């Protein structure tokens, strides 16, 4: 563009501006030019939000197999309440505003189960799902929490997808360093406590990987055989750890759930003494609300290893022989006590002939011979060999 043209345009713009300015009403005092114009804005309508706060359950106790999720729900926006103010077990299930939606690997579609909930503050609820029994072990349960406000807004936890449980099975591995800490084996019932091992700061001399394992009562071998079975058993490993001082031994918490129902005070805690090959009572504190028994290992004078909850007064007699010597048709089997792999039991008939060899846990005799046939009525001799020493006794089979 030529210079002449540019400057021509500039001059014309200034003239137009001046002309326009002349049309404005001058402020006689301040000579400020005020502009007036109409401005309008578009306002989006307000929406309700349902927030669910919940600590995910990653594991369900292998023996109790009860999943209970707890948490809180807060509402924001126009809706201040859940679909119904309160839900308890007296109401119809369809009235519940909070659900646990779940499915297992064997289900074809998700299933809903209601949660109990109540308002604790404006726009705030606490919830607790109805106990869900997951009867099979090694089956994943996938769940999410759903809450519905009174205007139909739905909140989810997690916001997408489902929480997967059982990915740790019946074992939890985690490390604790010299700074102390706690490792937890979740029970799956968030109304109650968990199994854990806790060290104070400075107890450990280095980083240690801990394994907490809950034993399946029907599969996992106990450290010794016995006719009286524990209600629940845990193994804390490693059993031997280096500590700066024995007074800094950990505190363990053992979850027992509903195992000793109905009397949750009717329990005792035993620790398996490897050197003596026997269960020994230990002092403990019992929290029946959390269903946990806590043992201070320094006070108890014990180490990590096997800990079990027994019914109070369980008399685990000395000796390896069976508690029962005469087997009637009502008795399907007997157990040789306090034995472990490496020990042997032999049953002989009256002619001194071996009819049964038992070399592995659970060291039970089901009245059958080595060929699987029931033995005859009569008297038999048993011999138990432990660490090279033999104990003998007699058993009678009657019909």
């Amino acid at each position: 563009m030529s210079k002449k043209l540019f400057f021509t345009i500039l001059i014309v713009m200034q003239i137009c501006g001046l002309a326009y300015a002349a049309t404005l009403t001058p402020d006689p005092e301040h000579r400020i030019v005020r502009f007036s114009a109409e401005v309008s804005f578009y306002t989006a309508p307000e929406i309700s939000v349902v927030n669910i706060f919940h600590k995910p359950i990653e594991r369900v106790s292998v023996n109790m197999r009860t999943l209970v999720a707890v948490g809180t729900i807060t509402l924001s926006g126009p809706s201040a309440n859940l679909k119904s103010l309160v839900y308890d077990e007296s109401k119809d299930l369809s009235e519940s505003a909070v659900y646990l939606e779940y499915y297992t690997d064997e289900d074809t579609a998700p299933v809903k189960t209601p949660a109990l909930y109540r308002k604790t503050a404006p726009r705030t609820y606490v919830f607790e799902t109805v106990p869900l029994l997951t009867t099979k072990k090694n089956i994943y349960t996938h769940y999410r929490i759903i809450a519905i406000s009174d205007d139909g807004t739905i909140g989810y936890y997690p916001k997408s997808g489902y929480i997967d449980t059982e990915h740790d099975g019946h074992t939890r591995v985690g490390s604790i360093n010299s700074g102390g800490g706690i490792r937890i084996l979740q029970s799956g019932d968030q109304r109650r406590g968990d199994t854990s091992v806790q060290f104070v700061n400075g107890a450990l001399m280095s980083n240690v990987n801990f394994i907490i394992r809950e034993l399946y009562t029907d599969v996992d071998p106990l450290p010794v055989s016995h006719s009286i079975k524990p209600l629940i058993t845990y193994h804390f490993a490693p059993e031997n750890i280096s500590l700066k001082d024995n007074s800094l031994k950990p505190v363990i918490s053992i979850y027992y759930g509903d195992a000793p129902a109905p009397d949750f005070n009717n329990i005792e805690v035993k620790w398996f003494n490897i050197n003596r090959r026997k269960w020994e009572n230990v002092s403990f504190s019992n929290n029946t609300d959390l269903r946990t028994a806590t043992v201070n290992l320094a006070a108890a004078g014990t180490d990590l290893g096997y800990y079990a909850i027994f019914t109070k007064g369980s008399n685990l007699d000395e000796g390896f022989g069976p508690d029962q010597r005469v087997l009637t048709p009502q008795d399907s089997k007997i157990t040789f006590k306090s034995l472990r792999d490496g020990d042997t039991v032999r049953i002989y008939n009256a002619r001194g002939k071996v009819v049964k060899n038992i070399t592995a846990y659970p060291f039970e005799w089901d009245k059958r011979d080595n060929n699987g046939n029931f033995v005859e009525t009569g008297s038999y001799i048993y011999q138990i060999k432990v660490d090279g020493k033999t104990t003998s006794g007699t058993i009678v089979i009657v019909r």
Partner: protein
Amino acid sequence: MIKKIITLLSALAFFSNQAFALFETTYWGVRALGMGGAFTAVADDSNALMYNIAGTGEMEKPEVSFMSSKLFTSLDGVDWGANYLAGVYPLDKRYGTLSASWASFANTGYRREDTFSLGYAREMDDVLKMLDIEWVSVLAGINFKYLMTETIDDDTSKYSSSGFTFDLGLLFRFEYGISFGYSNKYLTRPDMGYWQEDRIKHTNVLGLSYYSEEIPFFKIPRFTAALDYEMREGSNLIIFGLESKMIDGKLAVRAGGWESQVNFGLGYIFDFGGILEDSRLYIDYAFGLPLEVTDSTGSHFLSITFRFP
């Protein structure tokens, strides 16, 4: 011939298996036990009531015997014993022999099995003579038994049962010291159960024995070798036994056993004079060494037998 016998015995041993219990505890008769219990074809004294009743038919003098024993000694928690009392009374040869016995096995504090028996046996030579058979001597017998059991449960409850049955026995004495015996026991298979049917297993025993006044070359005097094959409804057992009587027949040395036990025995005969002339007192001892039960100092059996003139 010997090879065939060994082959047959080996085959029988292969099929030998044991699952004995109810009234099978044959721990009676010390002389018989000293020979391992292989007595079915020997059966020539008061022990015969338990092994082959037919053998009492050839006894010529009355005899009373009492035995006591302790089984699997040195095993804490095992207190087993067996007792035996028997009497034999021969009538005239034409009429046969009567006998009676009581045998008891006890697992002290837990269980007891008692057998009461009444027996009758007879030589059948007169019958064989009529049939013109002279190369074998045959004896036959029957033994009526009353069986009792008592068991004390762990909670001290007592249970008992009883039943009747009988045994049949045959004994064949051939030339050259060979004998063959057959005993058929518990023919009626009485039900001895407390809550369920629990019948005693039917038992067949075949016995073979050989007797020689002296084994040549080895010079073993009054030598008896015996073999029993016991069949008990699927459970079989081979038992062997040996006996030699030395010092003019007064001192007996015995050995025998089965798969899981070896027995040894000694016996001595005392002869009396005076008013008891022709009577005899037998003292017998047997020791059973279990081969599979460990830490036991064995089973010990002692008997006294009096043979009347």
